[in-house]
């Protein structure tokens, strides 16, 4: 039998304090494993319960660390329920395509300068190329298309950051969009650098994705603000909403890419 010091009796008091985590975790596991074969489900619930008890008995771990890990596990389970057990780039690619069409829509209806509209269009090209890379090779990170696509998107967002005007009445949303686009540029540059090596630097790919996620949420706020407040841009309200929805959902899906293999 295996011997180890993790999860042994010394963690009894600790475990007593965190018994609510064990109960909550068990209920979450039961809820999120409905539909599995009964034998498989029972084994899975028991194994996760034992894991949580061991984690709680671990002197290095706090009750909150166990709770946070349980919450992360639940989020991952929900992702598996919605998207299936396989790592795939299709949902992310669809969201990038939606944002890309939104960027084109904004380029064609915006009242901003020609330069700004050209950069919006450039961003649209980059985003749709990223989407095409995902759809072309949904079970892999398709470097030959992803690298140039990320570079084009970065050029588009950098240009957008520089050329977007600050207009009276929507200053706060203009500023938010400018800031978010600047951060998005950094995110795309990180993604591009991560896919430069043929093996793909996954650490930097995830960091780039995290930066995009943060920026996308900021951009979504700006886009919703524009859609609601700016009467002068009514023609592109739909585009703003489309970009906002794409940003939020697409950002939430980026983490799914961490286990996708590489194709050169």
């Amino acid at each position, binding site marked *: 039998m295996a011997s180890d010091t993790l999860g042994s009796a010394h963690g009894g008091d600790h475990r007593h304090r965190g018994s609510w985590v064990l109960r909550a975790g068990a209920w979450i596991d039961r809820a999120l494993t409905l539909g599995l074969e009964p034998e498989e489900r029972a084994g899975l619930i028991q194994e996760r319960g034992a894991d949580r008890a061991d984690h709680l008995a671990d002197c290095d771990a706090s009750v909150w660390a166990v709770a946070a890990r349980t919450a992360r596990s639940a989020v991952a389970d929900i992702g598996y329920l919605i998207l299936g057990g396989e790592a795939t780039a299709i949902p992310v690619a669809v969201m990038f395509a939606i944002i890309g069409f939104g960027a084109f829509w904004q380029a064609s209806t915006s009242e901003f300068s020609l330069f700004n509209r050209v950069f919006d269009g450039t961003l649209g090209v980059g985003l749709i190329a990223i989407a095409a890379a995902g759809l072309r090779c949904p*079970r892999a990170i398709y470097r030959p298309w992803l690298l*140039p696509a990320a570079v084009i998107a970065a050029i588009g967002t950098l240009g957008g950051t520089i050329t977007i005007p600050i207009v009276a009445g929507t200053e706060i949303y203009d500023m938010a969009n400018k800031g978010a686009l600047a951060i998005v540029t950094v995110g795309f540059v990180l993604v591009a650098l991560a896919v430069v*090596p043929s*093996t793909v630097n996954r650490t930097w790919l995830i960091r780039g994705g995290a930066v995009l996620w943060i920026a996308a949420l900021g951009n979504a706020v700006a886009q919703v603000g524009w859609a609601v407040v700016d009467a002068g841009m009514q023609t592109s309200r739909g585009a703003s909403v489309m970009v906002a929805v794409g940003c939020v959902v697409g950002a939430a899906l980026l983490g799914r890419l*961490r*286990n996708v*293999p590489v194709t050169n």
Partner: protein
Amino acid sequence: MRRKGGTDLVPNEVKLLVAAISATSSTSPEIHGYALARELADLEETHVTMSQSTLYRALRRLEQRGALESRWESIEEVQEDGRDGPPRRYYTVSPSGVALARAAVQSADRAKSSNPWQGWVPQLRGS
């Protein structure tokens, strides 16, 4: 899951297999899930342990591929250990698991030692 080339293992599976080999020995050839997650966190020098969902799905896949074998702990063993939690599932790395891990590590080493400038030019060829 369709995979491409090499050992056919995704990164999390390789990491878990390497951690399992690192943590087990001839005197203690078995390891349970949480201990494996801790070993992996130690190897990666992080405080964040892999979530149960990701961990046990990866272990199931490794077991289905024959890289790992498992058994449930008996109630007597739980009592002998002085624990009051549910029985654990213990994993052993199989000989084919050792071979898979070795191949995956060699493949990663080869990729690292390849020409670092090679990747600067995208190669437009199909998957």
